[in-house]
């Protein structure tokens, strides 16, 4: 175990550019705009600016933490167990969901104890987060990409940040939309989807930044 840990750390020191991982996850590989994850809460919450900021921050925090926890559990518990016939790839799904649900529950209790102000600001969004597919998605993708624990943490923080940026931008655009003349049948989800498409184009346009 210790050998493995040392091995991972050495790999990280020599490893990929963490900054590149972060920006790829947040901008060019934006989890919402290029992978369509977390659309349900995005479409409903982005009509309110304050709520979007709160939910965005909560998503960054939960994604980054669960990403690190799940990557650690996957590499140091499930993979070693695979030798004894445990089907790691099937179990990871259940493991990840339980970890996310438990983490959100714990976080809710901690925030309630520590700071009531923060609890009232973020508390209402926490249940929404358990079913946000962006978080489970980021966790599954970092396993697919074979990232180590620390890289996984950076990747999922980037994915969360990308999601937050997208929802806050969209909330800002929707404020302006209230005064725009939109065909009646296109109001609400329809126009939001079209703007998502345009935003996705813009984000893809940035892909030259990262090699």
């Amino acid at each position, binding site marked *: 175990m210790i050998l493995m840990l040392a091995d991972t750390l050495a790999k990280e020191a020599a490893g990929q550019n963490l900054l590149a991982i972060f920006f790829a996850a947040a901008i060019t590989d934006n989890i919402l705009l290029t*992978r369509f994850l977390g659309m349900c809460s995005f479409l409903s919450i982005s009509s309110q600016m304050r709520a979007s900021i709160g939910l965005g921050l909560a998503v960054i925090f939960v994604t980054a933490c669960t990403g690190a926890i799940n990557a650690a559990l996957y590499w140091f518990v499930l993979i070693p167990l695979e030798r004894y016939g445990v089907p790691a*790839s099937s179990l990871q799904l259940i493991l990840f969901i339980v970890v996310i649900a438990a983490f959100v529950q714990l976080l809710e209790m901690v925030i309630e104890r520590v700071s009531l102000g923060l609890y009232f600001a973020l508390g209402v969004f926490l249940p929404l987060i358990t079913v946000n597919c962006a978080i489970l998605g980021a966790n599954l993708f970092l396993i697919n990409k074979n990232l180590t624990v620390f890289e996984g943490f950076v990747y999922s923080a980037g994915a969360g940040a990308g999601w937050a940026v997208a929802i806050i931008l969209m909330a800002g655009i929707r404020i302006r939309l209230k005064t725009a003349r939109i065909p009646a049948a*296109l109001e609400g989800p329809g126009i939001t989807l079209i703007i998502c498409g345009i935003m996705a184009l813009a984000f893809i346009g940035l892909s030259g930044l990262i090699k």
Partner: protein
Amino acid sequence: MPPDTVSTPGGALARQFWAENPIFRQVLGICSALAVTNLMFNTLLMCGGLIWATSMSAVTVSLMRRLIPQRVRMITEVLIIAVYVIMVDIAMRVFFPEIHRVIAAYVGLIVTNCIVMGRLEAYASKNTPFNAFCDGLGSGLGYSLILMAVATVREVLGFGTIMGYPLPARELWWHQWTLMVMPPGAFFVLAGGVWIARWFAMRREAAAAQSPPAPQAAPPQQGGAE
């Protein structure tokens, strides 16, 4: 939101398939699926997995609805869905290994698909197993209908093929529209679909409102999830 009170199995199926179509009427559950809609065959597999997961987990939850304690209801339901999704995942890995490599993560994401969870919460946990099965099947089919439509548009315009087979004489007239292969294409096609569907719905409502002696069924409420 119209009441979930239709109690006949056929009624539940039809309501979920068309009248309350999860995507067009409610704009739910597009998360895990838009990403696979640039090829029809991948979409077909994904839809099959979703239909299996919604209908079977609805039956299971309905059978256990008196056993599940209220406080741990959500997590129990999630675990039930996860079991069926893992079955799909294993089956797909055995029969379609190449496609599985591309869409594996999205198959896993069926677990957090709002449609599955929503139907379990709203219907299966309160109704008998066969009704719940039909309700789940209807939602799954309604979702598949829309996804296959989106996938057809994207594959024809983006790759010039249908289910992997090239269009007739495509060298002569067809030109690739790269945007359709890329993620923004999915947003634009789906938005177009929502637009058309809502436009028809609104026109029908307006027609119903203009002819007062039309006592059948109150006009459906406008706008699903906002």
